[in-house]
C-alpha cells in the first residue's frame, strides 16, 4: 500500500497519486474475491462475521481514499462517526427488544 508520508497534501487540494487509486482498487477487487471464496467455506456463524469484516475493510478504504476522508477536516470525520454511532443506536436498541423477549418466560 502507498506510503502516506509521501502524500501530505494540504486538505484544500487533496490530489492523490494515480498509483494510490489503483492500489486501493486492486485491494477492493481482491477483497471481493476473498469474500466470495470465504462464503463457499462453511464457517458456521463466522461466515457472516468474516463477510462483514471484509465489507467493513472495503468500506473503510472507499471512505478514506476514494472519498478523501483521510484528507478531510475533523468536522467531516465527526460526521461519519456520528452516522455510525446513530446506526449503532438504532440497531442495538431495537435488538435489545427482540433478543430479550424470552428472558421473562413465565408471562409469555
Amino acid at each position, binding site marked *: 500500500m502507498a506510503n502516506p508520508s509521501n502524500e501530505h497534501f494540504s486538505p484544500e487540494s487533496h490530489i492523490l497519486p494515480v498509483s494510490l487509486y489503483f492500489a486501493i482498487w486492486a485491494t477492493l477487487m481482491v477483497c471481493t474475491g476473498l469474500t466470495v471464496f470465504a462464503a463457499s467455506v462453511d464457517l458456521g456463524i463466522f461466515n457472516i462475521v468474516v463477510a462483514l469484516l471484509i465489507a467493513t475493510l472495503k468500506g473503510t478504504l472507499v471512505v478514506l481514499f476514494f472519498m478523501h476522508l483521510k484528507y478531510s477536516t475533523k*468536522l467531516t470525520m465527526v460526521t461519519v462517526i*456520528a452516522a455510525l454511532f*446513530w446506526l449503532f*443506536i*438504532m440497531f442495538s*436498541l*431495537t435488538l*435489545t*427488544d*427482540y433478543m*430479550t*423477549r*424470552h*428472558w*421473562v418466560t413465565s*408471562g409469555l
Partner: protein
Amino acid sequence: MATAVQTVERENYLNSNYGIKSWLLTTDHKRIAMLYLVSITAMFWIGGFFAMMIRLELLTPAGDLVTSDTYNKLFTMHGIIMVFFFLIPSVPAVIGNFVIPLMVGAKDLAFPRVNLLSWYIYMLGAITALTAMVTGGVDTGWTFYTPFSTTYSNTHVIGAAIGIFIAGFSSILTGLNFIVTIHRMRAPGLTWRRLPLFCWSNYAAALIMVLGTPVIAITLLLVALERAFNIGVFNPQLGGDPLLFQHLFWFYSHPAVYIMILPGMGVISEVVTCFSRKRAFGYEFVALASIAIAVLGFVVWAHHMFVAGISVYAALVFSLLSYLVAIPSAVKVFNWTATMYKGSISYNTPMLYAFGFIGLFTVGGLTGIFLASLGLDVHVHDTYFVVAHFHYVMVGGMVMAYMAGLHFWWPKMTGRMYPEAWAKLSALLVFVGFNTTFFPQFILGYMGAPRRYHAYPPEFQVLNVLSTAGASILAVGYVLPMIYFLWSLRYGEQAPPNPWNAVGLEWMTASPPPTHNFDETPVVTWEAYDYEHQPQEEITVGH
C-alpha cells in the same frame, strides 16, 4: 421610541423588488421564512379547525355530531397536520430561517437554493397530504400503526404517507442547511461560546431532523409498499412484526418531539434574557442541555411501547434512559428561572408567553416522568393523560414559544410593531384557555378514559365539557393575534431597528433588514447576551 422617524424608506428585503415571481423564486432566507409563515399558518388553521370539531363532538358522551368514521378521520388529520406540517416546521422554518443567518452575521443560509427547494418540497408534501384528506381522508391516527394502516383501513393511507414522506425531505434540507450554516457561516469572532442559545437549540433540533427524518421516510415508504404490494414486512398475517413498525416509527417520532420543543426552548432563552436584561444563567449548561436532549432523545423511543408487547428487559432499559432525558430539560427550566433572578424584568408580550412556556413546560415535563415510570405508564398509556401531557409540551410549550418568538421578532420581520395591549390580552386568553382545555384531561386520563374515543361513558362528561369550554377560549386567543398581526402590517407603528433594546446581531441591522442583512460583515467582540455593556439609557420599552 427612538426619534429616527424614517422619512426616506431605505431599501429592505421586502421592498427591494415586487411581484409574485420575486417571492416564488427568491433565495433570500427572509422571504422564504415569510413563505413558510404563510403556509404553516394556513396549516395551523386547518389543523385547528379539526381540533375544534373534535372538541365539539366530545361535548356529549354520545357520538352525535359526526359519525365515528368522520371522528376518526378528524383526529388523524388533526394529528398529521399539526405534527408534520405545523409543529415541526414552525419555529425552525419560520423564525429560524429568518433569524439564524442574522444571528450568525451571515448574508444567507449556506445553501439558499436548497432552502427554497425545501419550501417547495414542503408545499408539495402538504398538498399531497391535503389531497388525500379532501378526497376521503385518513383514519389511522397520525401514528399509522400496522396492521391497521396496511391492511384494514379503507382510507387514503398511501396519499397521507407519501405526503409526510415528501415533507420529511423538506425538514431534512432545512436541518442540513442550519447545521452547515452554523458550522461554516459564522461571522468573525462569533465563537461557539458566543453563539446565541437560539442557534444552539436549533442546531440540536437540526441534528435530529438530519438523523431521524430519513428513518420515518423509509418506514412510511414501507407502509405504502405494504399496502400496495402486500410485501409483508409489518403484516403479522404474512409473518411480519407490527412491533418493528412501532420501533422504526418511534425512532423518529420520539426525537421529533424534540425537533418541536428544542427550537422553542431557544426562543425562550432569547426572550427571557432580553426582558430580564441579563446574561443567560448557566449559558454553557443550557447550550449543552440542548445537545444532550438531541442525543438522549434518540435512545428512549420504546417508552411509547411499554404495553405494546416488548420484552420486559427492553422496557427497563428504555425507562431508565427516558429518565435521563428529563434531566437536561429540568436544567433548562431552572436556568431560565435563575436568569430572572436580580434582573430588570419588563412584562412585554413575548415575556408573558415565556412565563407561560416555563410554567406549562414544567407541568408537561413532569407528567412525562409519570409516563416514563413503567408501572404507572401501564395504567395511563393511551389515555387522556397522554393526550394532556403532550399537549402541555406541544401547545403549552411549543406553540407558546412560537407565539413568543413571533411577537419578539415581528418588528424585525415586518418593520412594524404589534399592538401591545391586544397582544397581552391574547397571551392571557391563551394561558387560561389552554389550562382549562387540557388540565381536566389529566384527571380524565387517570380515571381511565381512553384516547381516540368517539363516544365515551357519561361519567366523563363534566370534564369533557370543561375541556371544550377551554378550547373555545383558546381559539379566541389564537384568532386575536391573527387579526392584529395583519392589522399591524398596515397600521402598526414603524419599528426601530432594536425595539426591545436587545443584544444580538439581528438587532444591529435595520428593521426590516436589507436584502444582504448587513451593510458590512459584522465582527463580534462581545460575549452572548452582553447586557452588562449596553447603555441603560437606551431602554425605551414600555409595558
